[in-house]
């Protein structure tokens, strides 16, 4: 019975990734591409993705921008507010490496220094298809129990 529920739950996690977008000092380029994912052309609701206003409703945290010093603490708080199991998708080149802002005294640089990142979507900005694919891969990680959060909790499969 518990096996059956776990199997069901994995399938449902795969098909219902709710998204919360956090802008940590982005130039807004990636945010516009994320907005495009929800428009009729790319329609992310087909895979069950919904953009949520509250991090407490979300499964996937989409982070854009090179993580400015000012956004460091708020972003950690947002990450803590997303109830587990959760996945983090870094959208664009900025959260991956700092991009052209790397070395600036006002940015932290790579997002992975602050919160564990599961999926990187490269590009400046990435195409909407790539962002949707990143979300699908993050949902697959959630379903298989392989996100950094699930492994840290120790309830994921190794």
């Amino acid at each position, binding site marked *: 019975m518990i096996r059956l529920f776990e199997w069901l*739950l994995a399938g449902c996690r795969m098909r*219902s990734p*709710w998204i919360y977008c956090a802008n940590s000092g982005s130039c807004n380029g990636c945010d516009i591409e994320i907005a495009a994912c929800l428009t009729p052309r790319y329609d992310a*609701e087909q895979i069950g993705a919904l953009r*949520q*206003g509250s991090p407490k*409703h979300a499964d996937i945290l989409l982070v854009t921008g090179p993580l400015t010093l000012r956004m460091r603490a708020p972003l950690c708080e947002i990450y803590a507010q997303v*109830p587990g199991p959760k996945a983090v998708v870094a959208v664009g080149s900025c959260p991956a490496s700092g991009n052209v802002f790397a070395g600036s005294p006002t940015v932290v640089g790579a997002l992975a220094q602050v919160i564990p990142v599961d999926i990187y979507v490269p590009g400046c900005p990435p195409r909407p298809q790539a962002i949707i694919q990143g979300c699908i891969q993050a949902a697959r990680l959630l379903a298989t129990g392989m996100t950094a959060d699930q492994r840290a909790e120790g309830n994921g499969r190794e």
Partner: protein
Amino acid sequence: MSEWWWVLLALLVWPGLVGGTLLGWLFFWVHRKLMAVAQGRKGPPFYQPFFDFVKLLGKRVLVPSGINRALFCALPLVSVAAVVCALALIPAPGNRMPSFRGDLILLLYLLEVPALCGILAGYVSRSLYGEVGAARETILLLGYNLPLLAAVIALGVHVRSFRLESLAAAPLSPVHAAAALAFVLAVPARLKRNPFSIPNAEQEIVSGSLTDYSGVLLALFELAHSLELVALVGFFTILFVPPAAGPVAAVGLYLCGSMVLVVLIAAVAAATARLRVDQAFRFYWRWGALAGLAALGLAAVG
């Protein structure tokens, strides 16, 4: 003894918990799909509400610190229980629960419980967005209940009974037309749909009173919301669609009547933008009140 079995059956299976949940998921999918089609999108797959519900069951629950924990956790349960009881009272075809005097009034009270729970949830979570959502919902509640109650009272006066069974069996009349209009005016605000999606105004005030809810508790609130949809459209069908002869035809007519109202709500939601709370309130106390007064006047004359 057998009477209690019927009550239990009505509560748990049809038209209560199980039947209501399945129907609610179907109606919610229809709503989301129609919205998507109206916007030129493909929309979510058929099983989407079920996926969302089970996924939320598997999420961790976060309870904010410094609040009344018991009340915070009890509110979604209370609202689901109240709507399930309301559904069981509806004399849908196949519901063998005995009707009793004044069950219409009980139904109205039970249907009000989820809205009150939503308001309390907003205040109890002590989130700023929750409080704004709860305040808006309180104002809106005073607006849409005017036409809703006027419609139901007009029908009660017309039929001279507050029993759901006799209201359902009453032949159609001009009172029904005016009351149906008032009822339909009230429904979108009752379900927080556009143009009256003011209390939950997504992205504007995060998600209103549910902002701080997560996991199972959020799933229960969503479930209560879809059951509420089933109860309201079922109530509408019982009141305004004349009963059919055979059992199959009766079930078919019940489902068709409900579906027509669901499609109507979705069409209105897709075609309109959100109003301000003062505009919505003015709308209800002007046009809603007019429709309600017309129904009451016709009932008093006829």
